[in-house]
Structures are given as C-alpha cells and as structure tokens.
C-alpha cells in the first residue's frame, strides 16, 4: 500500500483553494497522503520531507519579495515534483520552473490526470536509470559498510571522495530499501556479495 500512496505537500494560502484541492485529491482513485504547510521553510524542518513525491505550491510562495526560492526547493527536496497552483497572472519565467501546473479552471478529472501523468513520467525515469541492481562500485561500498567502516574509512580504502561514498550509500538505500547495517548485511549475504566465512561477527 505504501508504495501506491503519493505523499503531497500543499502550500496554498487560500483556505478555499487548499481545502477544495485536498478534497478532490482525497476523493480520487489514487491514494494521497496530504501534508499542509505554510511555507517551504516549514517543509525543510519537517520529517516528511524525504517522503514527498509532489509539492503543490502557490507561485507566490515560491517567489517571496522577488527572492527566488526555486533553487532552495531543489536543494531541500530534490526528488519531488513541483506543481504550481495557478489562479492569477505570473511571468513565464516563473511558470517555467514548474514540472506541471494546476489551473483554477481544471476539473477534478483533469487534476487527477495531470498528477497521474507526472508520476508516470517519473516511474519511466526510474525504470531507465535506477534499476534495483547494484553497480560494482556500490557493491564495493556495501562490503565496506557491512564491515562497519565509516564514510571516511571507505573513502580512503576505495580511493574515492567522501562525497562519492555518501552518494553511493544513498543509491544503495534507494535501490534495496534497506538502511540499517544489520539489514544490509543480510542483503549482501543473500545476494552472495559477501560470504559467511568472511564475516567475522557472525
């Protein structure tokens, strides 16, 4: 069930629009988990940040006092889609920063299909570029992790930067769905990446 649920953040100052949109989403076939926020800053400090698939936002909340928060958004939530809620005039420069837009004239079905298309484009992206198979380098990092090495130690041993280690780790977690060291050990064993004889702690 969890994988079918889309986690949506909603940043919309108008209560009518915000409630209306929430209702439309909750009644649709797709299962949504909706979180309401007053600002992007609030999302940044929230624990749901990493789960978010879509951020629905009123453009006025993305450009406050002529400051562009788009890059800030991409930095804090790199994996979510940004969807504008449009009911007044905004410059095309602003409109271009959205992955999709919902207009005030859209019907419930329209809104549903806009979000649906968006998510499909993402899953195609995922299928192409993020298969669940670990690359050789990721396997090397995994072995080091299982042996209890820190990021720094791994970087030294494999002669790569700490930054690269961190990004390999993220990919491993993303591909396997497993975070903890003991979980990763079990994964590595079952995929024959490590063998029980090499594993001292057993």
């Amino acid at each position: 069930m969890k994988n079918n649920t889309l986690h949506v953040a909603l940043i919309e100052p108008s209560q009518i629009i915000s409630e209306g949109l929430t209702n439309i989403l909750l009644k649709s076939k797709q299962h949504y988990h909706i979180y309401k926020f007053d600002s992007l800053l609030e999302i940044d400090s929230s624990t749901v940040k990493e789960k978010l698939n879509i951020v629905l936002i009123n453009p006025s909340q993305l450009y406050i006092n002529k400051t562009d928060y788009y890059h800030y958004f991409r930095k804090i939530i790199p994996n979510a889609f940004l969807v504008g809620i449009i009911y007044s005039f905004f410059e095309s420069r602003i409109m271009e920063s959205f992955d999709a837009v919902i207009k005030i004239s859209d019907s419930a079905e329209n809104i549903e299909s806009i979000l649906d298309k968006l998510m499909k484009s993402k899953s195609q992206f995922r299928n192409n570029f993020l298969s669940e198979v670990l690359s050789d380098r990721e396997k090397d990092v995994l072995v080091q992790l299982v042996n209890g090495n820190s990021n720094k130690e791994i970087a030294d041993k494999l002669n790569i930067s700490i930054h690269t280690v961190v990004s390999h780790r993220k990919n491993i977690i993303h591909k396997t769905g497993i975070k903890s060291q003991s979980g990763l050990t079990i994964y590595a064993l079952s995929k024959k990446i490590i063998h029980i004889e090499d594993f001292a702690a057993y």
Partner: protein
Amino acid sequence: MYQIKRTFIKPEMKITDLFFENPSLLLMMEHFDLNFILNNKTVEEVCRDNNINKELFISIANLYNGFLQVNESNLGIDDLNLIIKFLRNSHQYYINEKYPEISSLIDLVHQENDTPEIKLVKKFVREYFEDVAEHLDYEDKTVFPYFLSLVSPEAEKKSATNVSVKIYSEHHSDIESKLDEIKNLLLKHITLKNDRKLRRKLLLCILELENDLQIHSIIEEKVLMPLISKVELHHLNEK
C-alpha cells in the same frame, strides 16, 4: 483481512455495512474495546450507546478507511481517556498477537531454509521486536500515565513535559522503517525454497501490522499530541 475501501464514513451509515466493506474496522472496534453485536445500528447510535465522542470515532474509522487526515479541533480533554485506551489496546495487539504471528512465520521459513541469512533475519526481527516492545512499554508505563495525570481532577499541576512530538515521531519513523526493511528483505531480496504460501502469509501479516502502525502514529501525532499541548497550555494559563 487488510483492505482499504474509500467510503468516507458519516454518522448515519450502518456500521455492519462498513465492516463488510472493510473488515479491518473490526480491529478498530477491538482497539476501542467495543463489542460487535450491533443490530444494524448506525455509527452515531453505536457512539451514543457507548458514550463515545462520535467525532473521534468517525475520524479514526476514516483513518482505517484510508483517509489519512484528522481534524482534532472537535476533540476535547474528555476524549483523552478513550484515546489512550485505544492506543494501549493496540500495543497489546502488536505485542501479544502480531509479533508472535510474524515470528512464528519466520520460524517456519527458517525450517525450510536453514541458511545464514535467514538466521540473521530471525535475529534482526527479534531485536526489532525487543526495541519496539521497550518503546511501547515506556509509553504505557511513563508517557500515558503522565498524560492522564494532567487531566485527573486531583492532578498536581505540572508545567511542561519532556515528551515532545518530535521524539514521538522519530521513534515511530524508526519503527516503521525497520519493518519496511524486514518486508524488503523477506519479500524482495532473499531467495527461499517452498515459499509461496509462507510468503503470502508473511506479506499479509506484515501489511496488517504496517497499516495499523501507520494509523497508530497518525493518532499519536495528530490527535494525542495536539490534545496534550492544549491541556498543558490550559494548565499554564491557570497558574
């Protein structure tokens, strides 16, 4: 069985119709300590007969029906006892029913597959359940009694608690993410022999638990904690 339908529950609906549609509502009834003999009563009647705030009942029932939003503004201090009873009963369900069920299924898996990784999975699961049990025990013995003391008439007025919403949600996200790992390991990554029935049973069992845990967290974070903040604020203003 675990299932989610999308009927948005309203006071005038017949409760047994809702059970037929989504049997996991029966689990909710257990958590509420309510019997199932309901003679075609409506949701509203069931609440009235049992002296339950219908806003609370309907909100939680709708969580079970997949509407993961709660409006706590209609809930008051009087509801606290019932909410805590509900949460305590769900703890019992996890510890006495769900965890043994999952453990024994994994034991069966182990019987069929005596491999190092399954041994480690058993250890992983056992340690996970121990951690969770410890956390639930802390809630039952420390957190909930403190909350109840805030609303009891003879309560000495305490000013603040160190139980924060943040600590709460961190604990829970950890509980949920470990369960996710167990699910991924057993159902995605590890190769098993003779596994069809066992995997089906395990998956259903874990999903049932996962669904209830998710609702549990929402109730604690979106209903219980805001209510406690209200009570604490009230005490502060009295001082």
